[in-house]
């Protein structure tokens, strides 16, 4: 028998490779523990709770001025628009998405590209929700992300080659995916983005290794949820019990409630939290009722997709106040008792603190300066007390004439839009990127759609103040007080991050990455990245030095709308870069 040395060599090197892959593979443990491991970032939200709080305290108010760029990376091509992603960092590699469903692996020491993946988007695709993408999920040897044509794609983390691709929904029916997925116990959890009408939101779990569907949970009352076993769909209860309780006619069949911003997870209660979008159609007069589970937060069992509880922020939404905003778990002490709470800042202008075990309302308060659509919240239930005359009129009632104009504040783009807030475990404050704007809504006297007469609404967004729209706020979740604020000329559209060094980072459309004192709001640092920052910064430690990364590339929803706001932002240039900064070792001393 001839010995096959070549074969042996291959076998042993394959083994070595497998071992090294095993060592670098992202495990469930890594994901669950991400918020405590500052040397890597393996979850969207820097921890599944989405607190975006780093335990790193090397960077402080004393030395942040020495934060300096290490490398910058261009996404290339002409697709310079709307870079809203959060980078991930694992074992010396950064995984980040760019707009138009692109993924990049970058050597985090040098900024060299390791691989790039461009999803092939179908001809004639018209994504509902711009071309943004908010990031990847990491699991095992895979980098998983959602595409504009509503697919989940799992790439090999070392080669960037697809390992599985699953269609989550039909893009032709108006679906897309822009949020970063998350992985809970080996399952990829994703929601869907969708156009105004005809879609139904849902949350789904896919086996991260194979891409097989594990469960599906529709977010509109009346639709059946399923668990999949051996390729068979097993009924797992109708969302909300039955159809027609909070919707008229068959409107629940197309009720909207898109889950377009992804979710967070709390291990204490083993719950996935998702926000849901506005109900359809836009004309609220056609759909009397609460229209569950639109504009709500829902707690979902990660094992089978059952809904544990829900809390609706805007019942019978008539302003496009979507309720997708992230729900962030945090604990606080109340008379020596630990309260398992969760907070969310809604597009409707109110911030809510809920009991995350059962969804009970603890307290709610405005986080914007003015709210016109509601007089306040019911102190017991948190349900809004609608303001008289605050709801846009029924277009069917006004024939061929410009209907009565309603001024609504916040505007439909929200007191806070998609951009995630951060929670500091040090200060106990939430740092909320928000905007002060209002909208006029009226019924169009003449409107057409697809060759036919139609009833449309017209609207225009306008700044609430002459000199600023964006406001970064430090909000105390125990009192509802605004502890400090930073006012920005352009609307804020990027996420926030807090650190144990008592710093808060965020970006501005003017192009700056900025750092603030977490306690006072004093601006301590700014660096112009060359294009608007609408992504979310991250920080990690490598070789004993603290790094910060953020995407630069103006875009997203703001430039899509005209009116007075356009005057503030129209001269901003688009872009597509990753910027990485660090505090050099020799500067730490100045601490």
């Amino acid at each position, binding site marked *: 028998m001839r010995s096959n040395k070549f074969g042996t060599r291959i076998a042993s090197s394959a083994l070595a490779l497998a071992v090294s892959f095993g060592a670098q593979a992202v495990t469930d443990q890594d994901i669950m523990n991400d918020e405590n491991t500052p040397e890597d970032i393996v979850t969207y939200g820097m921890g599944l709770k989405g607190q975006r709080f780093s335990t790193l305290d090397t960077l402080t108010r004393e030395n942040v001025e020495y934060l300096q760029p290490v490398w910058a990376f261009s996404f290339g091509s*002409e697709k310079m*628009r709307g870079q809203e992603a959060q980078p991930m960092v694992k074992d010396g590699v950064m995984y980040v998405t760019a707009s*138009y469903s692109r993924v990049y692996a970058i050597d985090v020491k040098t900024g060299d590209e390791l691989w790039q993946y461009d999803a092939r*988007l*179908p*001809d*004639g*695709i*018209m*994504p509902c929700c711009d*071309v943004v993408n908010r990031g990847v999920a990491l699991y095992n040897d895979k980098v998983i992300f959602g595409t504009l044509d509503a697919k989940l794609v799992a790439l090999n983390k070392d080669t960037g080659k697809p390992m599985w691709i699953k269609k989550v929904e039909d893009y032709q*029916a108006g679906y897309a995916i822009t949020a970063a997925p998350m992985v809970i116990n080996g399952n990829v959890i994703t929601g869907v983005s969708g*156009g*105004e*009408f*005809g879609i139904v939101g849902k949350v789904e779990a896919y086996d991260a290794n194979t891409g097989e569907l594990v469960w599906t949970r529709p977010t509109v009352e009346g639709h059946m949820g399923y668990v999949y076993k051996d390729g068979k769909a097993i009924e797992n209860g109708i969302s909300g019990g039955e159809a027609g309780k909070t919707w*008229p*006619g*068959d*409107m629940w*069949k*197309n009720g909207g409630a898109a889950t377009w911003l992804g979710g967070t997870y709390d291990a204490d209660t083993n719950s996935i939290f998702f926000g849901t979008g506005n109900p*359809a*159609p836009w*004309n609220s*007069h*056609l759909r*009397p009722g609460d229209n569950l589970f639109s504009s709500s937060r829902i707690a979902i069992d990660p094992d089978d997709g059952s809904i544990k509880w829900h809390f609706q922020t805007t019942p019978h939404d008539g302003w496009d106040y979507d309720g997708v905003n992230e729900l962030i778990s945090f604990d606080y002490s109340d008379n020596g008792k630990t309260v398992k709470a969760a907070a969310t800042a809604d597009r409707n202008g109110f911030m809510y603190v809920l009991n995350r075990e059962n969804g009970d309302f603890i307290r709610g308060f405005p986080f914007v300066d003015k709210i016109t659509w509601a007089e306040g919240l019911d102190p017991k239930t948190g349900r809004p007390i609608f303001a008289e005359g605050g709801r846009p009129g*029924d*277009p*069917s*009632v006004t*024939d*061929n004439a410009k209907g009565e104009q309603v001024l609504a504040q916040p505007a439909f783009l929200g007191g806070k839009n998609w951009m995630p807030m951060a929670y500091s475990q040090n200060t106990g404050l939430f740092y909320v990127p928000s905007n002060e704007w209002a909208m*006029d809504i009226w019924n169009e*006297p*003449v*409107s*057409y*759609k*697809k*060759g*036919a*007469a*139609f*009833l*449309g609404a017209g609207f*225009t967004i306008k700044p609430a103040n002459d000199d600023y729209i964006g406001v970064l706020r430090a909000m105390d979740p125990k009192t509802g007080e605004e502890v400090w604020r930073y006012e920005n000329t352009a609307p804020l559209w990027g996420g926030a991050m807090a650190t144990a060094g008592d710093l808060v980072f965020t970006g501005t459309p003017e192009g700056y990455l900025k750092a603030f004192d977490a306690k006072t709001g004093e601006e301590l640092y700014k660096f112009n990245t060359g294009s608007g920052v609408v992504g979310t910064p991250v920080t990690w430690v490598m070789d004993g030095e603290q790094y910060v990364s953020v995407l630069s590339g103006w875009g997203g929803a703001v430039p899509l709308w*005209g*009116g007075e706001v356009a005057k503030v932002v129209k001269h901003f240039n688009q872009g597509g870069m990753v910027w990485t900064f660090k505090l050099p070792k020799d500067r730490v001393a100045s601490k």
Partner: protein
Amino acid sequence: MKHVTLLLLILACANLWAQEVDDGNDLLNRPADRTYDRILESGYLKVGVYENFPPYSYAEDGEPKGVDVELGRRIAKELGVEFRVHWITPDENLGDDLRNNVWKGHYLAKQRLADLMMRVPYDKQYAYMQDSTGEYINEQVVMFGPYQQETWQIAYDPNRLDSVETVAVFQYHPIGVEIDTLPDFYLSSGLRGRLREQVHHYRTISEAFNAMRQGDVSAVMGMRAEIDHELSKPANAHFQRAGNGFPGIGKQVWDVGMAIKHTHRQLGYALESIVDGLVRTGELHALFAGLNLDYSVPNYYQKFLEPKALARAGGEEQ
């Protein structure tokens, strides 16, 4: 089997878009500036029509069909150039469609524009609409050449309904509509919402007719040509046209014409005179009749044509 169907569907879709001319500027990533002279020189006319929108424009076995497609072919022939289809995926409103297909291009397909877009309502009030700062909203396009008048129509199943005298019967009988259309809004809010529970929503009029055949709804409301097209199918032969009115609908009838980019007016004048001829000679009426569709002369012509000329345009033998 399901996979085979899906594959065929994908192939069909790919085929649909592959028929189009790709004449944009790759380097500068912008559409070709196709003036009248350049269109004649190139030998083709890109006619923008809505996809999957029978009887106006749709594909059958990969072949563009429908009233708007046929009219597009006639126009191209009169210009002496080839007809090339440009499929339009409808956006939320007409303004979006004009931006994506006539003057600017969609942000995912910046090189892709139609030379001419069909089925654009001809309405001076709409054309000269101003925004809150006084700017003309539609200043980037010219809307011209009305070729048809469209209106609303209900078809019903006589086995379930004796007749439709008024829409009030739909307090008691289910009616199908295409989702997010005026009939949807009209019936869902009409009579103070008393019809609301009976309104069933479908993606297309064709799906609504399927539901009527299965007995899920007793009637369907849509545009007259859509309803007529369905009624001309043998499977729907037992359904009938209703004669009711639509009290409270702001727009009972509207003219339908075309749109071009505002810098291409010379093309517009040429197209206008071609379509004007087709309307006046009754050829458009014949085109509609050939597809089993009723034809109404645009209100634009009704205002100034002599009764005899009007009758001719309306297809009455001279």
